């Protein structure tokens, strides 16, 4: 088991209209990770997401506006920082990420100097299947982000991530809300601020509802937007973790 006590770990679940999947995920967390901090960031859902989360007795942030995953996550990191958590783990509320894999991420985070651990889909474990232009886009992003972060990343667009104290301090103030900002740009921001990024292979489950698009046109748009996001992120002025970090 990782040396970080589970009580110092906050699972952040950005949730937008996840009333169907959320109860199962929360139950699973309770079983597999007893004592862990859980924060559901309700991204202005129109369904019963908030009520379900409150009823489950976990901590809840109810955003008054829909901010997207990036917006929800910055609120989560902000919360983690203010409440003194050492580790914040992003976990999708749709059940795609298996809570049982969280200890793997925590273990990797324990390694000396590691700030961000990505749970990667294409790292040998599990059978997550994406084909066509979308896969090429993901590969291209991973290749470029590997160069930038200096780590060997196979799945840079994964949302399954664990962040240490330095990463929390940075992301609490600077976490992009743009499309793809929560994956691609956040890694660029982290790497350029001097955060150490690494990855571990995880199993991913099919999403509870809906599926990733395999429409070629949509995939092409995804590729273009990803490249634009990356280029913009790379040309942004640098931001040091020490400039903004709250000790």
């Amino acid at each position, binding site marked *: 088991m990782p040396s970080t006590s589970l*009580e110092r770990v906050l699972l952040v679940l950005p949730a937008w209209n996840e009333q169907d999947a959320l109860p199962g995920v929360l139950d699973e967390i309770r079983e597999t990770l007893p004592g862990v901090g859980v924060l559901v960031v309700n991204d202005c859902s129109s369904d019963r997401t908030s009520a379900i989360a409150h009823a489950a007795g976990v901590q809840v942030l109810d955003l008054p506006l829909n901010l997207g995953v990036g*917006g929800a996550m910055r*609120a989560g990191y902000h919360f983690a920082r*203010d409440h*003194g958590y050492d580790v914040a783990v992003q976990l999708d509320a749709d059940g795609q990420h298996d809570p049982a894999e969280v200890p793997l991420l925590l273990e990797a985070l324990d390694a000396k100097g590691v700030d961000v651990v990505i749970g990667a889909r294409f790292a040998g474990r599990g059978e997550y299947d994406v084909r066509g232009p979308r896969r090429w886009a993901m590969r291209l992003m991973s290749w470029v982000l590997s160069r930038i972060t200096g780590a060997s990343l196979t799945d840079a667009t994964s949302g399954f991530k664990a962040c240490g104290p330095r990463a929390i301090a940075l992301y609490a103030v600077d976490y992009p809300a743009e499309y793809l900002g929560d994956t691609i740009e956040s890694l660029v921001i982290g790497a350029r601020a001097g955060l150490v990024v690494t990855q571990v292979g995880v199993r991913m489950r099919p999403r509870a509802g809906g599926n990733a698009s395999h429409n070629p046109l949509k995939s092409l748009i995804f590729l273009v937007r990803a490249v634009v996001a990356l280029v913009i992120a790379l040309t942004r002025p640098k931001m040091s973790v020490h400039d903004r970090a709250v000790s």
Partner: protein
Amino acid sequence: MTGYGFALALVGVVLLTIIQLLRTRRLREKYATAWIAVAFVVVVIGVFPDLLFALASLVGVQTPLNLLFALGGVVLLVVCIQFSVEITSLEAETRTLAEEVALLRHDVRRLQTGTDRAEPTAHADPSRAEGTDAGES
């Protein structure tokens, strides 16, 4: 009435409108400056139309009117970009406020129910007092 007179009258109306908006604080001065500058240029050209002809031959534009249209397009473009920038910063501010509201709502709820059952961390580590939750920015 000449075309220039018409232009001057139009500018007069625009200027009065902007000044009225400024007086009633429905328009901030940082947005009004561009429009007042445009109005000023139109007045100058309206009074001394020869200026436009001189300027057109100076920059090599055959028809002075085209120069005017081109400049008008540039001005509108610049103003649109300024608005986009302002909207972006407004969105960033809105996002920060939304975040803050959510965090405050969480704190209010916790205070109302008077329980810390969902807050193991706050008690696990005495060095982190409850009070530190609020003040940081």
